[in-house]
C-alpha cells in the first residue's frame, strides 16, 4: 500500500474513533435579565469550573483608555459593600478553591474552580461584583502601580514581547488590535476612577455576559442557583462598540526594534480573515490547516525544512487564531540560528509561504494535520477548564458556542487546492508586516539612575 494512502486510511479510521467520543451535550438557557448560561456535565471528578465572560476587552477601548479593561479586571477583586476588598479571594481560598481572571482583546473573564458542592459560593460572589463594585481612588492608584509592574515584567523587559507589541501597532492602523491588552504605560498611569466607573457600568451587566459551568453538576440545579443569584440583577441598555474595521493595507510594512538583547528575532504577519470576518466560511478552516502544514508538530514544514533541514532557524513557528472578533494576522516568527541573520530567516519563511502559493500541499501532509486535529479533539476533553474556555470564547466573540461542534469535519473537508487558494489570496506581500528585533549590547542602554547610585553610596 502506498504510504500516503496508508496515512489517509489512518486518518479516516481516527475520525470514526473520535465520533464515538464526542463531548457531552451543552445545556443552554437565558435568564429574564439576558444572562446566557451554558452548562456542560463532566462527571469524572467531584469538581466544577465556573466562568463568567463579559463582552469587553482591549479591542473595545478608545484611544487614551488602552488597558482600562485589564485594569478594571484587577480592581474587580477590591470589594463591594457586602464583600470587602480581599474577601473574595480569601473566601474562595478558604473553601479549597482556585480562582483567577483574564483579559484579552475580545473578552474579560473570571473563573473559580471548586469542589462541586461549593458552586453557590462562586455564583453569590460573582453576581455581587457584577453590579456592586466599589472603585475607591486609593485602590485605583495602587492597582495602577501593580499593573505598571506587570507591564514591566511581561513586556518592557522582554525583548521579544516588546517587539511583538510594536509589530501589532505597525501592522494595524485603524483596528484596535493595534493596542496592547495591558495598555500603553501612559494610559495605565492616567486612567481615572471616574473613567473606570463608566467602563464598569457600561459593560458589566447580565445581558452582556455569559456564565459557563463545566463539571460534576446537574443542569437543573445550576439553573436554580443562577436564577437565585444572578436573576435579580438589572440589565443595562447596551450600545454596540464602534466599528473597528482595519483599512485595506496597500503595501508591505517594516519596522525595526532596537533594544538590549542577545538573540535576534523576526516576525512576519499577513492580514487574514477569521470565522467572524471571512467572505467564505471555508477560508478560516483552510488557513487553520495551512497553519498545521507549517507548524503542526515536529513534522511540520518549519521544523523539517528550517530548523532541521537548512538549519536557518534556532526556533520558529506560526500562529493563527480563527476565533478572533476582528481581522487577524497569520504570523510566522522565529530566531535565526547562530551564524545566520534575521534576513536569512525572513527569506526562508517567505520561501515557505511562496511554495504554499505555488503548489498544493501533499495528501499525506493533509492527512497528518487531520490526524492531529482528531486526536486533539479527544485530548481537549481532559481539561474542564479548556472546555469552558472554548464555549466562552465562541459565545463572547459572537460566533455562538456551537460554532465549532463540526470543527473536525470542517477540517477534514479542506482540500489541497483550498489551502493553496487562501495562501494566494491572503499570504501576499501587500498584506505583510515585518518586524525585526535588532539586539543592542546588554550593558549599554541606560545612564546610571541617580537614585540607585546614591543608594549604593550610602551602603
Amino acid at each position, binding site marked *: 500500500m502506498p504510504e500516503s494512502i496508508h496515512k489517509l486510511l489512518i486518518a479516516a479510521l481516527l475520525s470514526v474513533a473520535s465520533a464515538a467520543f464526542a463531548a457531552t451535550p451543552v445545556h443552554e438557557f437565558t435568564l429574564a435579565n439576558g444572562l446566557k448560561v451554558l452548562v456542560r456535565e463532566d462527571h469524572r471528578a467531584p469538581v466544577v469550573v465556573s466562568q463568567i465572560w463579559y463582552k469587553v476587552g482591549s479591542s473595545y477601548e478608545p484611544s487614551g483608555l488602552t488597558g482600562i479593561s485589564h485594569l478594571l479586571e484587577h480592581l474587580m477583586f477590591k470589594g463591594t459593600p457586602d464583600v470587602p476588598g480581599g474577601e473574595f479571594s*480569601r473566601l474562595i481560598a478558604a473553601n479549597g478553591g482556585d480562582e483567577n481572571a483574564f483579559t484579552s482583546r475580545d473578552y474579560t473573564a473570571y473563573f473559580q474552580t471548586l469542589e462541586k458542592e461549593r458552586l453557590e459560593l462562586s455564583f453569590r460572589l460573582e453576581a455581587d461584583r457584577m453590579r456592586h463594585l466599589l472603585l475607591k481612588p486609593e485602590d485605583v492608584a495602587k492597582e495602577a502601580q501593580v499593573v505598571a509592574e506587570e507591564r514591566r515584567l511581561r513586556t518592557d523587559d522582554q525583548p521579544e514581547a516588546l517587539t511583538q507589541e510594536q509589530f501589532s501597532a505597525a501592522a494595524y492602523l485603524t483596528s484596535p488590535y493595534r493596542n496592547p491588552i495591558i495598555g500603553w504605560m501612559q494610559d495605565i498611569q492616567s486612567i481615572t476612577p471616574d473613567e473606570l466607573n463608566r467602563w464598569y457600568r457600561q459593560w458589566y451587566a447580565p445581558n452582556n455576559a455569559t456564565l459557563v459551568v463545566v463539571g460534576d453538576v446537574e443542569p437543573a440545579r445550576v439553573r436554580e442557583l443562577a436564577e437565585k443569584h444572578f436573576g435579580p440583577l438589572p440589565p443595562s441598555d447596551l450600545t454596540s462598540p464602534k466599528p473597528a474595521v482595519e483599512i485595506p493595507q496597500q503595501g508591505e510594512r517594516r519596522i525595526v526594534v532596537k533594544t538590549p538583547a542577545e538573540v535576534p528575532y523576526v516576525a512576519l504577519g499577513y492580514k487574514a480573515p477569521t470565522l467572524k470576518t471571512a467572505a467564505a466560511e471555508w477560508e478560516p478552516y483552510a488557513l487553520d490547516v495551512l497553519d498545521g502544514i507549517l507548524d503542526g508538530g515536529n513534522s511540520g514544514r518549519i521544523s523539517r525544512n528550517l530548523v532541521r533541514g537548512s538549519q536557518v532557524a534556532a526556533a520558529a513557528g506560526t500562529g493563527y487564531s480563527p476565533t478572533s472578533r476582528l481581522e487577524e494576522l497569520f504570523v510566522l516568527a522565529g530566531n535565526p540560528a547562530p551564524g545566520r541573520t534575521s534576513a536569512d530567516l525572513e527569506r526562508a519563511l517567505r520561501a515557505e509561504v511562496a511554495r504554499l502559493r505555488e503548489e498544493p500541499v501533499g495528501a499525506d501532509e493533509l492527512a*497528518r494535520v487531520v490526524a492531529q486535529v482528531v486526536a486533539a479533539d479527544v485530548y481537549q476533553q481532559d481539561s474542564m477548564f479548556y472546555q469552558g474556555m472554548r464555549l466562552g470564547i465562541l459565545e463572547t466573540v459572537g460566533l455562538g458556542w456551537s460554532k465549532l461542534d463540526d470543527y473536525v469535519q470542517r477540517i477534514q473537508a479542506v482540500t489541497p487546492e483550498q489551502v493553496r487558494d487562501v495562501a494566494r489570496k491572503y499570504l501576499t506581500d501587500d498584506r505583510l508586516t515585518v518586524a525585526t528585533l535588532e539586539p543592542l549590547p546588554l550593558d549599554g542602554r541606560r545612564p546610571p539612575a541617580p537614585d540607585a547610585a546614591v543608594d549604593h553610596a550610602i551602603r
Partner: protein
Amino acid sequence: MRIIPIMSHCKPLLTGILGVLLLLASSLAAAVPPIQNWRTANGVPVYFIPAPELPMMDAQMLFNAGSVRDGARPGLAKLTNALLEEGAGDWSADVIADRLDRVGARLSAGSRRDSAWVSLRSLTDPRYLQPAVETVARLLREPSFAPDAVERVRKQMLTGLQERAQSPGAIAQDAFFTALYGTHPYAIPPEGTVASLNAITRADIQDFHRRHYTAANAVVALVGDLERSAAEQLANALVGGLPKGEAVPPPPPPSPVPASQTIRIPHPSSQSHILIGQIGVNRADPDYYALYLGNHVLGGNGLVSQLSQEIREKRGLAYGAYSAFSPMRQAGPFLINLQTRNDQVDTALQVAQTTLREFTANGPDAQALEEARQNITGGFALDLAGNGKLANYLGVIAFHQLPLDYLQNYLGIMNGITLEQARTAWQRRVQPDKLITIIVGGDQPAQSKPEPAGSTGS
C-alpha cells in the same frame, strides 16, 4: 504568535513536579482509584491509575538522568535528553516526527536537576497507540546521536543560553542556585555554559545515555483507558527493552548556607528581580508538611498570602510576590521571589525580609493557618481532575518511590499538624539571618559581599 490572555494574579505553578499531594476526605479517596504498582521483567517500577472515561493515555518515563549527573560537563544531561527524538536506529528525526504526528501522538521530553523524562500522550486504540509506543521505545533504547543532530541541538542550546542572558529572571535563578549550592552538583546549571556545551563530545553523550537511560534508573507512570493487562504490555513495550544497568547513587546532601550574602547583578531592565532564600528540605523530610502548610500562609497561596498582602495589596510594589519550598531528592531551595521597579528595590526588599523574619519568629496566625489548611485539603480534588494532572502527580510518586498509600498518610499528617508544630518547624528550619539574596536589575554596580550574621533586613 498566539495572543495569550493576561492572567491577573496567577498562583505560582507549584503543583506537578514540585507538587504536594493532599487528600481531603474519604469521599475524595473513593473518587481516586488506588495506584497499581508492579515491575517490568527488566525491573522498572510501574505506577498505574486506570482512567476509562476518555479513549486516551498518558505515559511518563522518568530517569535518574538530570543535571546533577553532569559532572564536569554542565548541559550534558539536557543535551542527551534533547537528542533522543532527533534520531533512533535507522530512523531520522523526520521519520520519528512523522511516525508520531500521523497518529496524533504527542511526545515531550525534558530534564531538570534530579530527573530527565520522556512523556507520551496518545489515543488508546491500538492502531494509533502501537506505532507511537514503538517509536518512543526505540528512541529511549537506541538513540543514534548523529553528529549533525548533535551540532544542531548544541547550537540551539547555545541560543538558549543567550536567551537566558537577556532575561533578568533567568539570570537571577542561575545566580541563586550557584550561590546557594556552591560545590554541590545542584549548583550545576542544567542548561550548561558556553564553554561546557562546546566541550561536550558525541562520546560523552553516548556514555551518559548508556549509563543513565537504563532499567535500574527508570520509573514509569501511566494513566489512561487501559486494562491492567494492556497496561503491563504497554509498560513492557516502552521500557522492557532497556538494559538492566546499574542504579546511580543519590546525590550527596548539600551544606547549609554559612552566612547571609547579597549579590547584585546589573542588567538594563526597568525592573529588578529579587530572590531571597536558603536550603530547604528534601522529599522525605518529616518537617516538609509543617513547612509547606506554614508557607501557604506566608507566600504559597496567591493573593491571600502575607507576602502578597504586604508587597502587592498594601503597597502596590510588585505584580507577584511568592515563596515556596521545592523539595528535591536532596534538600531543594526555599525561595522568595518578587520583581519591582528599580528605584523601589530597597523598600520591597525590606518588606519581604521583615515579613519573613516576623513570620518565622511568631509563627502563623491561627485562623490563617486553618484557612490555609482548608485551601490545601479542599483543593485536592481540583489537583487531580484530569488525566494529565493525575499523570504528573503519579510521576512524582514514581520518581521518589513514595508509598502507594502516600495520599492517605499525607492527609492524616496534614490534618494533624498543630499551630505549634508549624511554628516550631519554621523556627527550627528557617534562619532569617542566613539568606542568599540575589538582585538583578537596572543600573547597579556588580558586587558581591558577605554580610555579618544578623545584618540582613536591617
